[in-house]
């Protein structure tokens, strides 16, 4: 990583006349809201050395964009990818109908569980005692009233 930086510094991009020249690159990538951007853009208005360095760097960066490849996808590869994605959605049960089915199934399981628990509670010891106690009260009331 160091070699190109050294070459770049030697290449008269950054003159030694201004200590800020090494930071001019930040104007390309830093957000305009950033403090560094504000400081540098203010400085660059008054410093011709930095202005020239920035212009050179900006032009070269713009021109170097053509060296960044945007690779096009082959039609067969694209079709194959689309098919694979479709398969993945199927395998992962991510189709709308499958999700709905699962949710309905879950709801039925929940209702089933509630019903079973209700019956179990009706036949629990506490409930049997309650029935017995209620029956005793009922008989007493019938006999004495």
């Amino acid at each position, binding site marked *: 990583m160091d070699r190109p930086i050294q070459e770049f510094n030697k290449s008269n991009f950054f003159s030694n006349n201004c200590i800020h020249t090494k930071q001019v690159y930040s104007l390309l*990538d830093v957000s305009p809201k950033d403090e560094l951007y504000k400081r540098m853009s203010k400085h660059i208005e008054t410093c011709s050395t930095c202005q020239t360095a920035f212009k050179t760097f900006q032009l070269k960066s713009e021109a170097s964009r053509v060296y960044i490849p945007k690779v096009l996808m082959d039609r067969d590869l694209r079709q194959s*990818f689309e098919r694979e*994605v479709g398969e993945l959605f199927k395998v992962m049960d991510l189709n709308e109908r499958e999700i709905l089915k699962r949710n309905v199934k879950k709801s039925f399981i929940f209702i089933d569980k509630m019903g079973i628990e209700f019956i179990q509670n009706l036949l629990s010891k506490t409930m049997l005692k309650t029935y017995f106690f209620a029956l005793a009260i009922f008989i007493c009331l019938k006999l004495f009233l």
Partner: protein
Amino acid sequence: MKTEELQKYIQNLSPELYSFAYVLVPDDLQASQLMIDCVQSFLIQKKVLIEKMGLTKNRILKNLLDETKINIVKIIYELSRKRYQQLKISLAEVEGNGGFFSLDFDEKAILFLKEKTQFEIEQIEFITSMSKTEVLAYLYSARIKMTSLMPNNLFQNEIESGGIA
């Protein structure tokens, strides 16, 4: 939102994903396999979220597609980083030709994301799990390497005539 819509959205992302995958691992088959692995990984990681998406109204989940894209790009970056180490020797020839492919792995990824996909620096931070300073440093380093490919006096006339704003 229907999950079918998400499926179509991912399918339509293929040219962008392929381009990014190829930049990181410059091999046709490896790049396309990387994309498939990345979608599979995304579906496993976000399965619960995707299931909820299928049953929620459109307007609530409008931003989710953008999130999907950035998450998939993040997974591609992470997977390709591991795969790059394994394939490094076989990719040496492509990298040896110089130019963009001779940049370091992170430099290539960050420069591509910034220049070709128009992601913001904050989004690149998320994708690469790096700090802002690290991202800017890699970007700077990549730009320097790329500009060093051109002769110094190439734009002398434009600069002297104030050709750019």
